[in-house]
């Protein structure tokens, strides 16, 4: 079975301009959405706060839960359905010390609903100090993964390939953030993990095409780079789509059956995978060409 015949001749390089415009438009929407929402919707991992997942024995109206939490001094808690008779309560409060907090929660819940009527399935308390630390670490991890990839690709290929790859990666991360913001998803540790995974996947795709460009340019020294890029993207197209398809299939299954805890995580990965394929085909390789025209000294090809 072959979905894509080997002989495709799509002029991807010519489509680059419009592709870049589309991407910029999407990212612009993302920025607008971020401004609209007043910045990213940081979860407690980064903003600090408390998250409590409660499962009730029977249906419990949100108002009652809110009232119970209000009585223990948690103002403005957000209550979110999380499955049958199950809710997640978030508050910004964490206090400098989490020693007392959970016992306060338990006390208020058992006075409001009675012991045994509920089950505390998950409690997460993150103090502001840890939140700041985690934010810093997350940004550093993403930044240094870019640098690490830049160096590796720069050494194994050429520097302009590395630049093309990084531009594509930044693109993927931005697109994913755009969609997360549009759907008002929360940014937590899992999302950062998803972003780093997207970086890993997307560069994987990109490298396969770069590798083909490298091979083809050795074979046909006379051929202009633009044609080489086009041929290479076309030659690897079936593989790019196939692999992304299998990964996408896995993610879809995880999204629907993997449980609510990793729901947002898989959502981010789904968006990232699509963005990754798109950037691999339309952005990463044409950018290499762009750097070549800007810097004609880069014309000499590696032997």
């Amino acid at each position, binding site marked *: *079975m072959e*979905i894509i015949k*080997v002989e495709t001749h799509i002029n991807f390089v010519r489509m680059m301009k419009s592709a870049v415009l589309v991407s910029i438009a999407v990212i612009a929407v993302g920025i607008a959405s971020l401004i609209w929402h007043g910045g990213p919707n940081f979860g407690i991992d980064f903003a600090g706060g408390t998250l409590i997942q409660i*499962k009730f024995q029977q249906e419990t109206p949100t108002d009652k839960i809110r009232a119970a939490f209000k009585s223990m001094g948690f103002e403005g808690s957000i209550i979110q359905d999380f499955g049958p008779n199950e809710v997640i309560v978030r508050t910004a409060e964490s206090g400098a*010390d*989490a*020693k007392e*907090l*959970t*016992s306060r929660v*338990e006390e208020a819940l058992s006075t409001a609903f009675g012991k045994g009527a509920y*089950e*505390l399935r*998950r*409690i*997460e*308390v*993150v*103090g502001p*100090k*840890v939140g700041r630390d985690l934010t810093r*670490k997350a940004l*550093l*991890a*993403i930044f240094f993964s870019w640098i*690490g*990839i830049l160096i590796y*690709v720069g050494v194994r290929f050429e520097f302009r390939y590395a630049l093309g*790859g990084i531009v594509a990666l930044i693109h993927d991360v931005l697109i994913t953030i755009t969609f997360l913001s549009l759907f008002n998803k929360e940014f937590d*540790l*899992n999302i*950062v*993990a998803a972003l*780093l*995974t997207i*970086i*890993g*996947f997307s*560069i*994987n795709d990109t*490298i*396969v095409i770069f*590798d083909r460009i490298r*091979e083809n340019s050795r074979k046909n020294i006379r051929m202009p780079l633009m044609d080489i890029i086009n041929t290479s993207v076309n030659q690897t197209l*079936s*593989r790019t789509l196939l*692999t992304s398809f*299998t*990964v996408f*299939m*896995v*993610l879809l*299954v*995880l999204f629907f*059956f*993997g*449980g609510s*805890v*990793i729901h947002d*995580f898989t959502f981010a990965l789904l968006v990232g995978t699509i963005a990754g394929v798109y950037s691999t085909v339309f952005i990463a390789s044409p950018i290499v060409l762009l750097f070549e025209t800007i810097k004609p000294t880069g014309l000499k090809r590696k032997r």
Partner: protein
Amino acid sequence: MFKSIRIRAAVTIVICLASLVYLAPSLTSDLPDTWKNYLPTDKIHLGLDLQGGMHLVLEVQSAKAVESTLEKTVGDLKENLMDKRVRFKLRERTKDRDFTFEFPDVASRDDFDKILKNDYPDLETTTSEMAEGRGLVSLKIRDKRAAEIQKMAVEQSLETIRNRVDQFGITEPEIIPQGKDRIIVQLPGIKDTARAKSLIGRTALLEFKLVDEEHSLDEALKGNVPEGSIVAYESRMDRNSGRRTQTPLLLNGRTLLTGDALEGAKVQISDRFGEPHVSIKFNAQGARDFDRITGENVKKRLAIVLDGLVHSAPVIQERISGGQAQITGSFTMEEASDLAIVLRAGALPAPVNILEERTVGPSLGRDSIDKGTWASVIAGILILMFMVLYYRLTGFIADMALVMNMLLLLGVMAAFKATLTLPGIAGIALTIGMAVDANVLINERIREELHLGKTLRAAIEAGYTKAFLTIFDSNVTTLVAALFLFGFGTGPVKGFAVTLTIGIVVSMFTAIFVTRIVFDYLIWNRRVEKISI
């Protein structure tokens, strides 16, 4: 690499068997006894998000340890100065932890300087001035010494918490330092989280102080606390109403004895009321001190203070020799046994804060395992089917590699005692998707080479050779990202990075090395000329 198909096949089989051996304990719990004696019995380690439990990040307020050292040293210095009849006045501003000595003349300041230099190497003057014939000197702990104290405070806290947790009886706790002043505590399967937290987070500083009966408590409560005394509260719980009452007491500020002097502590039930209390035993020096203290203060009240709260303040009826004492109070059995634990394990050198807490109940963990496993199995089956549909025989070969990939991935995790988390299960599922990639690359290459009109043998040879570098480069870059993920992550995320990393490495082995064996076998041993791809 090895040319012989046989050797390569043997290597593969040995690796698979080794994985199975490591994996067996996780698959079944009734292994024969001979197995248990000679072969690995560790199950795959589940993260807290899967098995339930509590994750705490504690911060040791090590600066407090420096402060209390300063306080103690200055107190000692004060007595020393009095002994040597140096005239001075100490301006204590406890709020800013500022200790300033005031001297009426140059001579007494010189005496002071001499004593400071000879006997107190840890202290340093921050400001020293002469005004109107008086000398003012402020003191602090030397920076180098302060850093040492802070470091020791963290180390000692770690040790103390470890002791407490061990005595509490939790299986496989993990207590590790993080950064300069943090401690991560992981307690799998813990149920009573509040109790565990109070056990870990409590400073448990036990002090014996005399009740100050010379001054008026009422005056002190109005704000005129006499010098050298402090107000502390005695907290009592009424059995019947369950209400806590707090009674103020005026105590002599000097601590006569601390928990350091203890040798042991255990719970006992008093004969009369059946109420639990904690009986403590002093070490040799402590027993001597206690004997002296009680002898000197008969008919006075001795307060037993724990973390600033008075537990009881009984009247000393007679000199107590033998180094035994009791801490009574309205304890529940649990409270008494926890108190005994913390007294045995010793006090924390500085108070700790809980900066982060993550607790997962066991039922949520169970749900996560079920859903995660279920989703992974579905995803796996879909991919296996897809590969056969798309590539036919070659797809089947890739599928064999995939199954082996799963086996090795789990085997390696068991062998290296890596932790499986919920995102980790997602990572395994993603690895399935990724592992196909190597085979897709190879197969697409082979197809291309066949389109160019090469023989099957040449096409396979070229396909593998050309695809290898691609696979290598693309996987290494993914590894770079995975490694940063590992460095960044805590708990569940780290588990994800682990499975992803192992998955990438293993998939390169199965997709390149193992499938090649099958192809070579078909071409060389079976003389196959055509293959469905």
